[in-house]
């Protein structure tokens, strides 16, 4: 599963980090860092993260 975050849209609210903490995190400056690939076992969490993103900035491409 590939993960793309539109960083022009992302406002670093961090909502995604609560749903899928192994994939999304805020760095020390509060800026989003994320993995661009995730195991399909994490699909539920990553989908939930995309749901709760206030900017709807997260796109998931399933393999």
């Amino acid at each position, binding site marked *: 599963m590939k993960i793309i975050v539109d960083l022009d849209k992302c406002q670093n*609210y*961090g909502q995604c980090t609560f749903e899928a903490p192994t994939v999304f995190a805020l760095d*020390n400056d509060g800026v989003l860092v994320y993995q661009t690939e995730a195991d399909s076992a994490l699909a539920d969490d990553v989908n939930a993260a995309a749901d709760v993103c206030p900017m709807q900035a997260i796109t998931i491409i399933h393999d």
Partner: protein
Amino acid sequence: MTVVVVGAGLAGLRAAEAVRGHGLAVTVLGDERHLPYNRPPLSKAALRESATAADLAFRIRRDDLGWRLGQPVVGLDLYRREVLLADDTVPFDALIIATGIRPRVLPVPGPPPMVLRTVEDAEALRRALTPGRRLLIIGAGFIGCEVAATARAMGCAVTVCAADAEPMIRPLGEHLGAGLRRRHEQAGVEFHLGVGVSGYEPSGVTLSDGRTLTADVILSAVGSVPNTQWCAGNGLDLVDGVLTDNRLCAVRTTAAGEEGAEAPVLAVGDIARFPNPLFDEVPRRIEHWSMPTDTGRRAGAVIAALLAGQSPALDFRPLPSFWSDQYDATLQSFGMPALGVPTLASGSWDGDCIVEYHRDDVLVGVVGVNRTRELATYRPRIGSVSDASQPAAD
């Protein structure tokens, strides 16, 4: 088994996805012409730069949801298990009410001002806000304050008048409200607080103290009214939204009696008034963006359980969260600050800060201004964690 969802906003969408995920057929009925779209940008980026409903559309997880858009639901017959359109009826085995709220209108004479709820409202307001025009905003809640900030960035002169003593005073308290007012004042916004509006004029308003304010554009942002009219006459408690229990099942004020009345009826999103044991047993409506997703998922699970003859646990304890962007300030909140007494935990009321809200030693909410990362550490501490093991009261 068919589940009908009325209201095609975020809550209707998330509820429909959840219901379908449990293997049930679902149809969503909505009066707006658009598939569900994101409202928060309407007072922020989408007000500055034009955006269509398609630009703001939510990602929809499933392509097997039924949609009937562009037609309002005008009535409900719980006994017959039907919702009524102007020229048709739609039968259901279970119903989810997701019709949200509409802007409240002050009972004041004169030409009605603009409001902001839909993408069409935002487009009309955007067109009116050309540089140099004078915008008068009635109401100093979140939407009023966000529009004030956006309109300043668009080059408009902005005046805010409100009955409250400070902006956003009800959710945030006096000190943080005053701090945010000073941010707005530094950006050139003029405030008239503690005063009502007694008349709309073509070129401004008359205030309750007799003064007049002139403006080219007037926006009313004075709270909301739940869209429950279509549910009337079915024994539901519609005093403020749709009263539900912790399962989100609507509470019937008259004994159901008839067989037909036993179909599951749930409410989700801005319209649902439900008890959240994270805080207490008092049912409340929460107009935050996080609730549609939490309540939508919950509704799907509850309906699946009920239709399978099971009784869902009374363990729904969602943590409300809110954000707001004004100038360079990003406000974020977790919990229900309005329930508690504020104390400054770090920073200053006028600048970036974290404010804790306590009720009887329990942390009920936290608000941060430009403190996203630290705020996250508060999340697990919010609410009456200790009552998790106690049975929820009836």
